[in-house]
């Protein structure tokens, strides 16, 4: 079965692309032991995905070795220590993003598609070479954004760049680090505000959760924690993984007010079309 390739991108740095890739990857692999999931760290020179998965110590070869022919893809893949159907293709730490080209990525992904059902690509921040390397072979894109003006502006730019690609790339939105109390007191943008500006389908919302910090430092993704108990970021990541496989899961309720102004505007705007 040809592997579907999903790109995690954002434009802005530090909004949660790597955390989301790690958590959604382990959630997908743990929910269905029959599918093979591969995660690729495209942040060459500043690799982080291996730390978040706790696989830092097990890296021998990396993606630059593979595209340069120093080793085969299979040799560079690091099997996850908890889940047998999950693997990581690490980035290089001693090189930079010019070490790989979009054409090389297309060839590499084509090879990986034979081995895996799902390939998750963790794109670096920015819109330069690293971004274009990651976009080269992606089928779908998950835009990660926090509910902040700067993050939303950058996400909008990135969506514009994705829409301008030669092929249709389905874009999904994940809103990360939401604080429902701040939304209610009007100090933070709400889900409606972000979706109204970005105008792409919402895949999920992750609330701000201190346990994420602990989990990233330990290298144990929160989505696997047994203490999730139906709320918090870990559960939200599990829900997103379920939605990606086609299961309908309602959005977690955070007790925030709906933005009625935005809803009214969108409702009326939807009535008007060109003839």
């Amino acid at each position, binding site marked *: 079965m040809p592997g579907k390739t999903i790109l995690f991108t954002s434009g802005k740095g530090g909004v949660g692309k790597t955390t989301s890739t790690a958590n959604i990857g382990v959630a997908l692999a743990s929910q269905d032991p029959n599918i093979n999931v591969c995660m690729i760290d495209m942040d060459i020179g500043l690799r982080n995905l291996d730390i978040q998965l706790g696989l830092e110590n097990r890296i021998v070869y990396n993606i630059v070795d593979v595209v340069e022919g120093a080793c085969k893809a299979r040799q560079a893949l690091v099997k996850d220590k908890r889940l047998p159907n999950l693997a990581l293709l690490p980035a290089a730490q001693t090189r930079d993003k010019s070490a790989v080209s979009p054409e090389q990525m297309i060839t590499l992904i084509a090879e990986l598609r034979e081995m895996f059902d799902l390939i998750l690509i963790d794109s670096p921040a920015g819109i330069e070479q690293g971004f274009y390397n990651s976009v080269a072979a992606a089928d779908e894109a998950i835009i990660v954004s926090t509910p902040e003006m700067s993050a939303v502006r*950058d996400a*909008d730019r990135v969506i514009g760049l994705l829409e301008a690609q030669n092929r249709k790339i389905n874009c999904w939105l994940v809103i990360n680090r939401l604080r429902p109390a701040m939304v209610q007191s009007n100090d933070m943008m709400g889900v409606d505000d972000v979706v109204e500006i970005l105008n792409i389908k919402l895949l999920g919302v992750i609330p701000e959760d201190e346990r994420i910090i602990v989990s990233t430092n330990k290298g144990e993704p929160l989505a696997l924690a047994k203490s999730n108990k139906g709320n918090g970021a870990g559960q939200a990541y599990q829900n997103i993984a379920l939605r990606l496989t086609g299961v309908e899961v309602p959005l977690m309720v955070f007790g925030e007010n709906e933005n009625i102004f935005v809803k009214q505007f969108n409702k009326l705007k939807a009535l008007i079309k060109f003839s």
Partner: protein
Amino acid sequence: MSKLNSVILPSIVIDLSKYSSWEEAKAEFKVLIGSKISFWQNTALIIRFADFEFESNNLDELKTLLNESGLTLKEIQSNSIQSWKLIKAAGFQVNKSQEKNSKSSNGIRLIKQFQPSQANLETIVPANAEERKTIYLGLKENISLRAGHLVSYNGNIVIMGDVNPGCQIKATGSIIVYGKLCGSVHAGFGITDEEELTKIFVKALKMGDPLQISIGDYAACSSSESQKKQKMGIFPETAKVIDGRIWRISDFE
């Protein structure tokens, strides 16, 4: 198609087909039109209704609404064939509901075509009012013009969709946005004649923040005060040059 100061306005379909009764459809139509209607003037309107059967007093109410607002209706679309006789008797044109195929992203490809660099607009001679052409973005499917997009055209630009902050639009003519307008728009680029400039305008269903509007050599920006007073629903406004300043005129009450 009808004209407004040399901008050829497209016919607009108001799609009320998800309101299954006349009362619901009428209520939504009233909110959309508002009591002060200059935004919709000179626009050929087509209203698409759901398949409910019309009663003659419904059509009388519609006529009153249209008269009060000074609007003309080009056509009513309804799949309830039983109502057609009644609609025609009331003096309206009627047709079947035609759903456009909205699968293509024509709007985006159109942007790529009309993305000449800034240098082009600065070196060309702007077309005068009679010869000015209009391009339409978002015809098949509403588009969102995103941060980093640059649209420039020697003529008028009509956009069906939103313009996000960080987007730049330059036109030698007028600009109309059927959606929320943010970013930086420059209408009447290269026009210096004051008389000509009074005919150039920027219209939007909602003027957002941050927004920089330039008409000819005049420039203005939105104040961040406006963000605190969020208005309900749509709030159409027109920006024009009057007495050496850009004014925002509300087309809504």
